[in-house]
C-alpha cells in the first residue's frame, strides 16, 4: 500500500506540471491583449513599457519557469515564514505571483476569500452527506416503497434542476415573498453574540441548502445503488441466520460495506463542489473563491485566473489520489500491489 501511495504521488508531479503548462499556454496563446482594457490615449511606446512592467517582454519559457518558481517555491516559503513569524531566505525581495488588478499577491487575495467558501461549500457538502446517507439506506432497504419512489424522484429533480435556478427560486420564495432570509451574504458580519449567530445562520441557510440538495441528490443515488448491491449478498443471509436483529444487520454489516464505494465518490466530489460553488456564490453574492475567479475573468487578470484555475486542478488531482488510497485502505480486496 505504501509502495502504491508513493508511486501515485510521484505520478501526480508530471500530471500537475502538464496541467499547469496547459493552463499557462492557453492563457498565453489567447488572442487577447492584457493592456486592451487601458485607455486608447496611451501612446504605443508607453503601452509597450506597461507590458514589460507586467513581465510580458520575455520569451514564453522564461515566463513559465518564473511562474513555476513563484508558485511552487516562493509562495510556500512565504506562507511558512508567515506562520512561523520568521524570515526564510531573501524574504524581502522574493517575487510573488501578483494580481494585475489589485497589485497585491494573489495568495493573499485567495486567503481572504477562503473562509467564506470553506464555510458555505464545506458545510453544504457535510449537510448533503448527512441527508443523503440515511435516505439512500432507507430507500434501498424498502425498495419500490413509496419512500423509495419519492426519494428517487426528488434526487432526480435535485440533479436535473441547476443550482442557479434553485437558488433564484429560493430567493424569490424566502427572501422576496416571505422575507425570512437575506438574499445577499454579508461577509463583514462578526459572530459575537446570539443575535449575530442567528443572523449568520440565516444568511448561510439558503446557499447551504441549495448546494446540499444538489450534492445529496447525487450521493443518495450512489448510496442506494451500493446498498442494493450488498443487501442480496450471502453474508447478509448468514448474519440474519445467526439471529442478529435487523438493525445490526443493516446498520452494521450492510452499511459498512456499502459505504466503501460511496466514500470514494464523496472524495471525488469535493473538487467538483468547489467548481459548482462558482455559480451558487454568484447567485447569493457570497464573496468566495468562485466570485474571485469571475472577477478575475471579467477584469482579464491573468495571474489571478491562472493561479486559481491551477489550484482547482490541484484539488482534483489531490482528491483523486485520496479516493484511490482510501479505496485501497477500506477494501482489502482492492490492493494495488
Amino acid at each position, binding site marked *: 500500500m505504501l509502495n502504491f501511495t508513493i508511486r501515485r504521488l510521484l505520478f501526480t508531479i508530471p*500530471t500537475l506540471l*502538464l*496541467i499547469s503548462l*496547459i*493552463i499557462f499556454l*492557453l*492563457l498565453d496563446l*489567447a*488572442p*487577447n491583449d492584457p493592456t486592451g482594457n487601458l485607455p486608447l490615449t496611451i501612446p504605443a511606446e508607453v503601452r509597450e513599457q506597461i507590458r514589460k512592467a507586467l513581465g510580458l517582454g520575455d520569451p514564453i519559457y522564461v515566463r513559465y519557469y518564473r511562474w513555476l518558481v513563484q508558485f511552487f517555491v516562493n509562495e510556500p516559503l512565504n506562507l511558512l515564514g508567515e506562520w512561523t513569524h520568521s524570515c526564510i531566505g531573501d524574504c524581502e525581495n522574493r517575487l510573488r505571483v501578483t494580481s494585475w488588478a489589485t497589485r497585491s499577491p494573489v495568495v493573499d487575495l485567495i486567503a481572504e476569500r477562503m473562509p467564506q467558501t470553506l464555510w458555505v461549500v464545506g458545510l453544504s457538502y457535510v449537510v448533503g452527506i448527512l441527508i443523503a446517507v440515511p435516505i439512500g439506506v432507507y430507500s434501498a432497504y424498502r425498495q419500490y416503497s413509496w419512500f423509495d419512489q419519492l426519494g428517487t424522484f426528488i434526487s*432526480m*429533480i435535485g*440533479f*436535473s*434542476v*441547476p443550482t*442557479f*435556478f434553485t437558488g*433564484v*427560486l429560493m*430567493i*424569490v420564495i424566502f*427572501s*422576496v*415573498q416571505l422575507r425570512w432570509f437575506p438574499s445577499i451574504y454579508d461577509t463583514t458580519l462578526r459572530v459575537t453574540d446570539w443575535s449575530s449567530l442567528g443572523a449568520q445562520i440565516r444568511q448561510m441557510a439558503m446557499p447551504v441548502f441549495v448546494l446540499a440538495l444538489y450534492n445529496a441528490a447525487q450521493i443518495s443515488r450512489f448510496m442506494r445503488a451500493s446498498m442494493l448491491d450488498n443487501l442480496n449478498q450471502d453474508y447478509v443471509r448468514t448474519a440474519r441466520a445467526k439471529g442478529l436483529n435487523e438493525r445490526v444487520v443493516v446498520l452494521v454489516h450492510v452499511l459498512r460495506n456499502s459505504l466503501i464505494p460511496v466514500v470514494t465518490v464523496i472524495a471525488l466530489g469535493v*473538487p467538483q463542489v468547489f*467548481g*459548482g460553488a*462558482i*455559480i451558487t456564490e*454568484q*447567485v447569493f453574492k457570497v464573496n468566495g473563491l468562485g466570485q474571485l*475567479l*469571475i472577477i478575475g*475573468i*471579467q477584469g*482579464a487578470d491573468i495571474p489571478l*485566473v491562472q493561479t*486559481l*484555475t491551477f489550484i*482547482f*486542478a490541484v*484539488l*482534483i*488531482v489531490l482528491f*483523486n489520489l485520496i479516493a484511490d488510497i482510501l479505496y485501497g485502505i477500506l477494501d482489502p480486496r482492492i490492493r494495488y500491489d
Partner: protein
Amino acid sequence: MTDLNTNPIGEIEAIAVVEDPRSQWWDVWDQFKTHKGAVLGLAFFVLVILLVLVGPHLWTIAPNHIDIRAKNQGMSLAHPMGTDQLGRDTFAQMLSGGRVSLAVGVVAMALSLFVGTLVGVLAGYFRRIDGLLMRFTDLFLALPLLPLLLVIIMLFRDTLRAAFGPETGIFILIVFVIGITSWMQTARIVRGDVLALKQQEFVLAARSIGTPPHRMILRHVLPNVMSPIMVSATLGIANAIITESALSFLGLGFPSDFPTWGRLLFDSTNFMSLHPARVIWPGLAISLTVLSVNYMGDGLRDALDPRIRGR
C-alpha cells in the same frame, strides 16, 4: 403425407413468416415503454422540440420587438408569459431562446460523442495507442472544467465574434468548448466495451477472413457499442444544456439580444424582487427539459440492458 415430409424447411419458413421478424430495437422500445418516467420524458422533450421549431411560425410576435408601453406586464392573453422591462414578449423570447439552447445541447452532444467514440474505439482497438490516449483522457478529467470554460470564452470571444459575426461566433465557441470538455466519460465507457468485444469469436472470425481495421470498426465494433453511446447521448444533451445555461447565467454566454434560456434567467434575476414570475419561466424550461432528458436516459439505460430487458 409425402408432401409434408419432403419439405420441412418450407414449413419452418412459413411459421417464421407468420411471426414478424423483430429487430433488437423493437425489444428495446417495448422495454422503454414500461418505464413511465421515460415515456413522459420523451413526450415532453418531443413537445418542446416541436414548440421551438414550429412555435415561432405560429406565434408571430418577433422576440426582439420592443413595445415600451407594454413593459413589465404580467400574464395575459396578448402576452401569455408577460413582457420584460423593454416590453418584449417573453413567450416569443422563450421560443427563440429554446431553439438556441436545444441547438447548443444537440450539437455539443454530437461533437462530444464523436470525439469520445473516436478516442474510445481507437484506444480500445489499437493496443499501441491505448496507453497514450487513456493518459490523455485522464489528463482531461483532471482539468478544472468550469473555470477553464469561462477562461476560454473570455479569451476567444472577441476574436470569434469578429470572424463569424456575434451570433454564429459565440455559438461555435460555446458548442466547441462544451464538446471538447465533455467527451471523457464516453471515451472510457466505449473503450471498455471495445476491449470486451475484441475477445469475442465473431471478431476473430471477421479478422480471420482478412477484414481491414476500418471495416472491422465500422461494420463489427461500432454497431455493438451503440447502446452505451446512446445513453451517453441523452446525458450529454442534459449536460450541454445545463453548461450553456450556467455560462449564460454567469454573463459569459450568449448576448442579451440573442437570448437563450440561461441568458433570459440571468437577465430577469435583476428584476426578481419586482417581477418574480419572470425568473420562473426560463428556469422551469431548463429544469423540465433536463429532467425529461435525464428520465429518457434512465429508461434507455434499462431498455438497452439485456439483463433487465424481457423480465
